[in-house]
């Protein structure tokens, strides 16, 4: 996750608090999604960015995960998400990201 965006997320959490805030991501693969989740829950794994050693504890979901999908209307799902759900396996995303949410 780019360092400029790490700084932005950090600022947003400081401003709004982590209690009623979550991050919803749209990464094109599971590995990329995991990296973002790791960065904003446990801190920057490369120890280089503003989130190095900072544990924001922000819950992270991928927009294709079943829990989020359940809240999105059929029309919007078809228009925005359906095709990418064939490219990235929503179940795999859930398995990968739920690990980090348990820690958040």
């Amino acid at each position, binding site marked *: 996750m780019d360092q400029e965006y790490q700084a932005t997320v950090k600022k947003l959490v400081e401003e709004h608090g982590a209690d009623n805030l979550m991050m919803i991501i749209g990464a094109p693969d599971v590995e990329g999604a995991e990296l973002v989740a790791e960065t904003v829950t446990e801190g920057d794994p490369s120890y280089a960015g503003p989130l190095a050693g900072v544990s924001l504890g922000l819950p992270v979901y991928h927009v294709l995960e079943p829990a989020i999908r359940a809240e999105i209307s059929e029309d919007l799902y078809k228009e925005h998400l*359906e095709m990418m759900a064939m490219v990235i396996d929503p179940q795999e995303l859930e398995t990968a990201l739920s690990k980090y949410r348990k820690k958040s």
Partner: protein
Amino acid sequence: MTGPKVVIKQAAYILAHVPDLVRYGSKPEREIAAGRTELAELEKHLRSFDDAVAYPPNQVFIGNISPDDYADLQEPWHENLLRDKARYGPFGEIMPQDELYGIMKIWDQFDLIDLSPSFTSALNEQLAAHPLITAKDRERLGEGTPQEKIEKKVEKEKSLPLFHRGKLVGCINRAHDNDATLTAHVMLENLLTKVTGILVTRHLVRNASIEPEKIDYLLSCSEEAVGDRYNRGGGNMAKAIGEEAHCVNASGCDVKSFCAGTVLAIIHGAALISAGLFNEVIVVGGGSFSKIGMKFQGHMKHNMPILEDVLGGIAILLSTDDGASPVVNLASTGKHDISAGATAQAIYDALVIDPLQKLEMKITDVDKFAVELHNPEVTLPMGSGNVPLTNYKTIAAMAAMRGEIGREELSEFIRLRGMPGFSPTQGHIASAVPYLGHSLKLIADGKINNTLFAAKGSLFLGRMTHLADGVSFLLEKNSGKD
């Protein structure tokens, strides 16, 4: 409703190896300045020129290996080097850093480059063996600038030192004392774009056996911003390149849309020819220096060489119909409209489905799809994904949703109609067009009938709009003179 046929006669590709410039790439420079990366540590991860030449993706780029053979090679590529491969290939070459400094000096018209006398004289000898650098070019190397003077410029005049194999051999100077758009760093970016553009254009003209005087127009799709403080990004890199490539009867201009620029410029060039304005148009893209070393942290973390150490250059010759060369199908090109939306579905509808439908073709009627061909070995270590694979998965998903292939045929579709990425990660260089040279050859040899070239541009990075861009065209076998 289209005019006469337009063909692509030739495509040329070059790489320039710049290990000692990695430190000035946007990302490495910021990391070093912030003290988060030690320059000495970074230097331990730089590759030799021989390793850059033997690196399989680079060999695919200059045409010594076909994408099909590449798909069968052992990975990781950086550990399975091809020592028998040469710096020259059918599409162009991989130029070493010292020669690149040489052409920066030769094609610098504003005393921007100083090189030391000993480096200059060695270079003069070395460049005499280069097939595209003339004796007249080499005269412009001059005698060199005394080392003390170079050191003084670096120390007192904000010049940027140029190193070769760790030794100070010259400097690049600012073009104005007090203009943020003409600093030494900006001049480095712009001059590198220009010289890689000239070099690849000279390769193109030679490979196509055309006199440069016959070229009518050049379109540059390079991603730099040439100008001064009153005209930042003012542009026309095209004419600057054409001048030194001896295209004396040509004019030109720039066509930009982030990574989509090159495919867009091809369509513009083809339209100008089809409309009868010009006969011979060159589309040229020089290297994008700011991307050098962009993902170096991922490479260092995985104990790999820093793979973003080459600048790319690409040039394409568009012409009126010769009855033989592959045709740019202007009856239907893809464009991503402002109202189309940012979804993958909307983008691929615009770039793949809509244009094919107009031609009454199915997705499976396309033999090869050329998408953004970024080398995944560069992007994966930084967690940036395998860009071409994601693109191919999306096109395959689209074919499955439309019932053209079964859901169990996705991987076969990708294997057959896609390819692994092999391009340096400089957006306009990587977007679809690295396959063009291979496609021209495969179509000529009767191995494939067509290729769909699709490129996307991340307009939102400039913070003027949340929109993205996309553009595509179909290249087809020539059915003979109309």
